[in-house]
């Protein structure tokens, strides 16, 4: 890649302030560092990954509102976590966390356990109990 070919395709996701460095060759064939605000294929891939995340969040929310799953499923998606990460945060096995996805089991959780989930999601217990 030539120095003057380093793409500068900005998009909203990058914010104007963030520039990554690329290695490119100058006219003498020497490598130099060139900042870039973004590149179209990468912007497409990033936007698509976030669309997917937002879809998952919306679906989880819908299921919580329908009473199919507990709020933990929604907040897990919202915090971009998966079950293994969440289990690590609350100090439980993955199968135990999966059990807490069921509203009936969730409703029986102790205050201490709710507290741990809320802390993992960086929200209050109040927010954990009410998905809006």
């Amino acid at each position, binding site marked *: *890649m030539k120095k003057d070919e380093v793409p500068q395709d900005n998009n909203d996701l990058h914010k104007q*302030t963030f520039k990554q460095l*690329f*290695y490119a060759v100058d006219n003498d064939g*020497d490598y130099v*560092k060139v900042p870039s605000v973004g590149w179209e*294929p990468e912007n*497409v891939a990033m936007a698509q990954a976030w669309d997917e995340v937002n879809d998952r969040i919306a679906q989880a929310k819908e299921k919580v509102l329908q009473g199919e799953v507990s709020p933990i499923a929604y907040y897990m998606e919202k915090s971009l976590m*998966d079950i293994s990460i969440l289990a690590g945060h609350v100090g439980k096995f993955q199968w135990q966390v999966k059990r807490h996805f069921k509203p009936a089991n969730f409703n029986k959780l102790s205050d201490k356990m709710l507290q741990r989930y809320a802390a993992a999601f960086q929200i209050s217990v109040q927010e954990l109990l009410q998905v809006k």
Partner: protein
Amino acid sequence: MQTAAPGAINNKMNQQFNHVQSAHCESGVVSNLLRHNGLQISEPMAFGIGSGIFFGHLPFVKVNGIPGTTYRIWPSGILNKVCKRLGVQVHSEKFSNPQKAMAALDQAVAANIPVGMQSSVYYLPYLPQAYRFHFNAHNLVVFGKEGNEYLVSDPVMEGPAKIDPESLAQARFAKGYPEPKGRMYHVSHVPSQVDFRKPVKQGIEQTCNFMLKVPFPMLGIKGIRYLSKKIVKYPELGERKAALFLGNIIRMQEEIGTGGAGFRFMYAAFLQEAGIKLQNDELRNLAQSLTAVGDEWRNFAFEAGRVCKARTVDQNAFVNLSQLLMHVAEGEQQFFTKLSKVKL
């Protein structure tokens, strides 16, 4: 390329940490920390000596159902190898809880010792939101404190940043693989004289072995061919999944601070610099060959981006992508074979 100011200072005790932006976090932290301790080494040199370049496509390592692709060796590999090969000693420790980890950090800051640490990008508020996934192998340096906030040299940022203690503690104790557990490290010994010849040789030898000789179909150049064969079948996944799978390859190649073309340009910069340092024209010529292969990687990403955007499962488009990758694999095969025969 980073150049040292003439008469660069060696007195680390009173010296403010000099942040230099890098393409990648780990090679950047290594370069910045070593330079602070009086050993001038650019990011590409650190990356090459640390045998940073690699390829692997791992369908069984999935994040949200998407198979993993990597263009570099495993986390911490670069740091460990560079230091071992240059004779640098690094003191590294992990902690059982955030209180102890933050207390140890405060001690280091009070003693004016810049420390590298492993962190999760999800908890770093100074990064743009769009980059903040649960990626736990991010490296940064903390070099001071202003009021309640820590001064951070994050290699991917243009300038130094600040972070509040709560966020930093969360970043250091994120869960999920690889778990940082507060891991913190500093340079404890740097040799007074460094000859780059042997470390460069060792770095290149290991890289060539990894790329050409690892007996697993998913790793090294075999891995590129393996992915090429996988891509032909992506249309069977349906348009949504096919686009996500492709998109992830693009992101691993271009987005996460690789310096372009999945670290290929950074490695070419290493060969160029090493060629000058060791007065070896072969290395400098090979740098040009790798630049050409890197351009093919970029072309692949460009075409893949178009397929993602179109969101169609046009079989011809995927066959084309697969062929582009096969061609890349052929280019890398030739390149690494030549590199493995260079006399150093």
